[in-house]
């Protein structure tokens, strides 16, 4: 009997991947020997963008000494594994990415499922500029002036049915356009989820821009989920699908390492990551560490949603 998987021989996809992997291996080998590890200094230092664009928007939950993180840091220090696992990889590898034309599907347990062109998706909704605190699970933080729409508005338009309990958001899967997906670092496509009340919360945004400009590719263009009281990895990028479901979705980092990354991922200084403390954070651009705040400083607005929950278990 001849057993052949239909996807076994798409040569058009295999070849570029090998080139890609081969090139990476070569660069990595050079890196191990230290060639380039030293030369890599200069381009980093020149990453200045001239002047910072103007900070726009209303501050939400900022502490009195919170200042917006410079544009250069916001747009060059990114975790976006679809474009590489290094912090500087996305800005390099996402240069050629085209976030338009773009379609977004809103479906699942909704009265009005639809597939939208990005322009139609955004047009009727209110766009706001908001300055939020951002806390990465890796214990660094930023303050970012986002521009975007409220996820609640998107959901209301689709009219969730009474069975809808959770929202699942999915990144584009296209290894040609997102070279990081050619390596199985995570189970692609990247998926994140929120409880419906979290998704409907007035702080939960879909960013379309930053610093009053269109969202740069490395920041998750054209649509990037922002949930400021949760760790940054909840903020799924380059979203193509928003699906309402009745069961808690499996989120990518939880699938990849369940003991380290949970579903809720609320910023919590009292619950350590197994490998480091979450009680402190380094604000990008600052040397001395800051204490991390419960729910990243948004406790007043969101704590009620988690009343009675064991946050140590539901990390």
């Amino acid at each position, binding site marked *: 009997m001849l057993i052949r998987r239909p996807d076994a021989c798409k040569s058009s996809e295999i070849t570029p991947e090998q080139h890609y992997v081969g090139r*990476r291996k070569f660069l*990595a*080998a050079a*890196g*191990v*020997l*230290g060639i380039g*590890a*030293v030369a890599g*200094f200069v381009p*980093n*230092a020149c*990453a*200045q963008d001239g002047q910072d664009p103007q900070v726009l928007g209303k501050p939400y939950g900022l502490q009195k000494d919170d200042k917006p993180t410079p544009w*250069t*840091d916001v747009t*060059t*220090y990114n975790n976006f*594994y679809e474009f590489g*696992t290094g*912090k*500087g990889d996305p800005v390099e590898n996402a240069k050629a990415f085209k976030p338009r034309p773009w379609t977004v599907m809103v479906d699942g347990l909704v009265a009005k499922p639809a597939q939208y062109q990005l322009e139609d998706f955004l047009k009727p909704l209110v766009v706001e500029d908001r300055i939020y605190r951002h806390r990465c699970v*890796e214990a*660094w933080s930023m303050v970012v002036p986002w521009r975007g729409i409220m996820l609640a508005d998107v959901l209301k338009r689709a009219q969730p049915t009474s069975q809808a309990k959770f929202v699942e958001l999915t990144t584009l899967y296209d290894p040609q356009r997102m070279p990081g997906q050619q*390596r199985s*670092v*995570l189970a692609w496509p990247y998926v994140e989820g929120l409880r419906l009340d979290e998704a409907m919360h007035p702080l939960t945004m879909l960013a379309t821009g930053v610093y009053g400009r269109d969202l740069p590719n490395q920041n998750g263009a054209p649509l990037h989920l922002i949930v400021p009281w949760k760790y940054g990895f909840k903020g799924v990028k380059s979203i193509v699908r928003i699906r309402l479901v009745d069961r808690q979705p499996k989120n990518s980092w939880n699938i*990849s*390492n369940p003991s380290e990354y949970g579903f809720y991922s609320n910023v919590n200084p009292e619950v350590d990551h*197994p*490998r*480091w*403390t979450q009680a*402190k954070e*380094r604000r*990008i*651009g600052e*040397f*001395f*560490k800051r204490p991390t705040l419960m729910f990243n400083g948004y406790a007043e607005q969101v704590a009620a949603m988690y009343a009675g929950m064991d946050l140590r278990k539901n990390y």
Partner: protein
Amino acid sequence: MTANAFYVRLRAMREPRWFGPALIVGSCIPAALAIGALASDIVGGTRFFGSNPVKEGEHFLGEWTLRFLIFTLSVTPLRQLLGWNWLAKHRRTLGLFAFGYVSLHWLTYALLDVQLDWHDLMKDLLKRPYIYIGMIAMLLMASLAITSSKNMIRRLGGRRWNRLHNLIYVICILGVIHYFLAVKKDIEDPVLFASIFAFLYAWRIWKWYTRRKAAAVTAAAIATRTAIGA
């Protein structure tokens, strides 16, 4: 020039006079760059190490520690391959630099990253495997650095000293495990370092095996000759 002739010339190469000083100066360059970049980034707000210089500098110095361990373990294969026996006396320099880099790596962690918060340092040390594995490796390296002088070789006796310094094989394994455990998800770089160490270990095992076989053949030949003679 044929490849063979090139190899012959390479083997015949004697130690250039500049080699020792150049090795020391070259070995200092990454450390000098790291210290300069960290100081400039932290004090002057430059971005030589990117947006999170402390983390980046910490990783940079950790990787250079592994590189110097690789360089140290490469001395013997290079001697065997190229006949450059003069390399042997530089092995200690390389090993001491590995210790220097691990010290800087740890100082960056303790002073700049954890900022000498004793509570956090202790919690890290007791609770987090990648921290205590790294720490054990560093302490073992310290014991080798302390006993690296000629005087110590004499005091310990060659055999005991050799046995102690075989700890480098344990240290490299601990170092690589520390690296594996420290990365979040992308283990490409740890795998790469691990495979280089694996190659250096395999080389030694292969050499040891062929030497043993050759010894056995010689022993057998002597035994035969003795038998015939008897």
